[in-house]
C-alpha cells in the first residue's frame, strides 16, 4: 500500500470520531432523556467527607429533609462554568446543597474548592464511583433534587444556568417546601 495514503486514513479516523461526537450530542440530549430514577427513592449511601475522610456522611444524615445533590469534580471543565452560580446561590436555595465529588483525587478536589470557593453544606467523596452508579450519574456536573421522603424529584445534567435555576429548580424547591413533610 502507498504510504502517502496514511495521512488520509488517519484523517478519516479523526473525521469519523468527530462525526460520532456530533451524532452522540444529538441523540443523547441530556435534557431529553428523563432519568429512570425520577420518582424513585434515592439510593442509600454512606461516604467519607472530603475535608475529613475519617468522618462518614450518608443518606441517614439527610433523612427527613429535602436536599440538592450536586455532582462535581476538579477534572470537569463544565463544573468550573457552573461554579460561580453555586457560589452565588448555593446558600440561598432553602435546601442544603450537598457536594458529590465524583471520581476525583481528594487532594485535587480540596485544592479546587479552596481555589474557587466552597458553596456546599458538606462534600462527600466517591472516588471509586460506586454510589454514582446507584444514582445513575453519567458525568459531571449533574444535579439531583431529593425530597424529604428521600425520593428523587428532579435531575439535571450539565451546568445549571441562571435560566434553569429560576425556571426549574427554584419553583421545584418552593413546591417541596409547601408539601406536607
Amino acid at each position, binding site marked *: 500500500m502507498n504510504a502517502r*495514503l496514511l*495521512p488520509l486514513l488517519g*484523517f478519516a479516523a479523526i473525521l469519523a470520531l*468527530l462525526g460520532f461526537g*456530533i451524532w*452522540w450530542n444529538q441523540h443523547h440530549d441530556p435534557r431529553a432523556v428523563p432519568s429512570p430514577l425520577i420518582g424513585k427513592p434515592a439510593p442509600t449511601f454512606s461516604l467519607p467527607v472530603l475535608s475529613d475522610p475519617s468522618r462518614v456522611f450518608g443518606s441517614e444524615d439527610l433523612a427527613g429533609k429535602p436536599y440538592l445533590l450536586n455532582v462535581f469534580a476538579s477534572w470537569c*471543565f463544565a463544573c468550573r462554568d457552573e461554579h460561580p452560580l453555586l457560589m*452565588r446561590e448555593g446558600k440561598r436555595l432553602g435546601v442544603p446543597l450537598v457536594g458529590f465529588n465524583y471520581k476525583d483525587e481528594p487532594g485535587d478536589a480540596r485544592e479546587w474548592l479552596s*481555589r474557587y470557593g466552597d458553596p456546599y453544606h458538606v462534600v462527600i467523596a466517591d472516588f471509586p464511583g460506586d454510589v454514582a452508579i446507584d444514582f445513575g450519574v453519567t458525568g459531571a456536573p449533574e444535579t439531583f433534587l431529593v425530597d424529604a421522603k428521600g425520593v428523587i424529584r428532579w435531575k439535571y445534567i450539565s451546568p445549571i444556568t441562571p435560566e434553569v435555576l429560576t425556571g426549574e429548580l427554584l419553583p421545584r424547591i418552593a413546591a417541596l417546601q409547601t408539601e406536607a413533610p
Partner: protein
Amino acid sequence: MAPELGQFALILALLLSFAQCVLPLIGAARGNAALMGVARPAAIGQAVFVALAFAILTAAFMTGDFSVAYVAQNSNSLLPWYYRFSAVWGAHEGSLLLWVLILNLWIVAVATLSRKLPDDFMARVFAVLGFVSFGFLLFTLLTSNPFARALPVPADGHDLNPLLQDFGLIVHPPMLYMGYVGFSVAFAFALAALMGGRLDVAWVRWSRPWTNVAWAFLTLGIALGSWWAYYELGWGGWWFWDPVENASFMPWLIGTALIHSQAVTEKRGSFRAWTLLLAIFAFSLSLLGTFLVRSGVLTSVHAFASDPERGTFILVFLGIVVGGSLLLYALRAPKVAGGEPFAAVSRETLLLINNLLFSCAAAMVLLGTLYPLIGEAFDLGRISVGPPYFGFLFVLLMAPIVLLIPFGPFIHWRSGNPRVALRRLLPAFACAIVAALAALLLVRGQSWKAYAGVAASLWVGIGILLYALSRWRDAPPGRRYTPEMLGMIAAHFGVAVFLAGALIVEATSIEKDLRFAPGQSVEIAGYTFRFDGVQHADGPNYSADQGTVHVLRDGKPVAELHPQKRVYTRNQQPQTESAIDPGLFRDLYVALGEPVGADGAWAIRVYVKPFVRWIWLGALFMMIGGFVTAIDRRFRALPRQETRDAAGPLPAGASA
C-alpha cells in the same frame, strides 16, 4: 434596511468567491489567461463586500440596533462604545464574519504582492483560497446569519458576556484569526504546487514569508489569550490545556515545524513531501480548531454555544477540504526524495528532529483533546485527561528541542562538526551549569523546575547570542546578518526568555488563600499586604465591591491594588476582577473572594508570581522573529530572472 444590505453583501461575496474558485481553475487547466485573470478582481470585489457587511454589523452595534438578534444578544445600551465595537466578534456569528473578513484581507494581500509569480500557479492559489472563503461564507449564510432580525424588537440588549468585556478580548480574536487564517496561504501554495505538478522548491520560497507572518500573528494571538486568562479568570494561571487553548496551540506547533521544514526545503531541497504535508496539516488544524470551538463536541470554558447543524456543516467542509487535499497529496506528492544528501550530523538532521518532536507534540495534544470523545466512542466511560498528561508529555517532548536549539546555527548544512559546535557553545554551557548551581546553593528548597529553568534559559539564550557574536566577528561588514537570520536569533532568544518565565513561575510562585479582616496585614515573600476594607464602586454597566490592598516592602509603599467583584446590571452575572501590580521580575496579584464573617473580613487570594511577564515577553520575541524573517528580500526573488530590484516594494499594477 441596513442589516438586509449586509446580508445581501454577503450573498454577493459568496457568488464572487464561487467565481474566484471555479473560473481560475478552469483557466489554469486550459491555459486561458482571461479566466485566470478573473481571480484578482473577484478576490478584491469579494473583500469589499465582506468588509461592507462587517461595517454594517459594526454600525448596528454602535447605534444599538436591537432589532438585529445578534446585537440584542451581545450588546446593551449601557455597554461602553469600545466593548460594543469588540462585541461584534464576541459570539459565534460575528466572530465567523471576522474570520471571513480576515481571510479576505489575506487574499487581497496575496493578490497585490504576488503579481510577479506565474499566472497559472497563482490562479490555482486563488482557487483554493476562494473555495475556503466560499465554504465559510456559505456556513455564515446558512447557519449563522449575524443579520437575522429579532421580532418583536427588545427594548434593550442582553449584554456582552462579562468575561469578554476586557481589552485582551478586543485584540485576542483578531490576532488569533490572523494566524489561523494566514496558514491558508501556505496551504493554498502547497495545493497549487500539487495540482500543477510544480513540485520544485519555488512554491516553498514564495510561501515562506506568508507562513512566517501567519505564525507570528498566531504566536501573538496565543500570548494575548494566555495573558487574558491570567488576569481575567482570576486563577493566576497562564495556560490551562483547555480544549479551546489546545485548538489554537496545535496549529502553532505544526506551524513551528512548518517554518523550519520550509527552510530546509527551500535551501537544500530536502523534505519536499514532508513540507507539503505540514502545510496541509497546519491549516487543517486551524479548521479543526474552528470545528472544535463551534460544534459543541467538546465542552470548554469559552466554547461558543453548540449547535448540531453547525457542527455537521463544518465537519462536512472539513472533510472536503482536508480529505481532498490529503487525497491530492496521496496522488501527487513526490515519490522520490529530492534534495541534496546530508550526513547524520548536519543541520538537516537537527531540523528533522525539530519537525518530528513538534509534530509528535501536536499529535499528543490532539489525542488528549479528543480523548473524552474516544472514551465515549469505545464506551470506556468518561475519561478526561488534564494538565498532568499534557504537562508531563509536553515537557518530555520539548526537552530535546531545548537541548538542541543552540546547536542549530552552529552545525552546518550537509555535514556538521559537533566538536567544533560544542567548543563554541562551551561558554553557554558553563554559564548554564554555574548559574543553576549558584541558584541551588543560594536559594535552597525550590523545585527542580526553577533550576532547570535557569539552566535551560541561559543555555538557549547565551547559545544564540554566541552565534550572533560569531557572525559579527567572522562575517564581513554588510553581510553579517540577513533578516532571516535576525528573525531566527530573535525567535530563539524568545524561547530562552519564555523558558525562564514559564519554569520559574511554575516552581516559585506563591499562592495564598487568606481571611483578611480590615486593617490586617500579612507578609508574603518579603511583601506586606495590608487589607483596607471593601467599598462599593460603580462602573458604566456594573456595580462592584472594591477592595483596597496596600502592598509595602520594608515599610515603603509598593502598590495600591483594587480587586473587584462585579455584578453586571443587565443579567446579574458576577465577575471577579483581579488587581495586579506588574513588574519585570514579579507580579503581585490580588483577587477578591467572598465576604466571611460579620467584621468586614473577606476571603482574598494573593499571588506573588516571579518572572511571569517573561512568558509573554518571550512570545513577543518569537513574534518579532517571525515578522523580521518575513521581510527577507530573498523570498521575493524570482525563479528565472535574478533581479536585484525585488528589494523595493513590489510595484502595484505590474504583472508578470
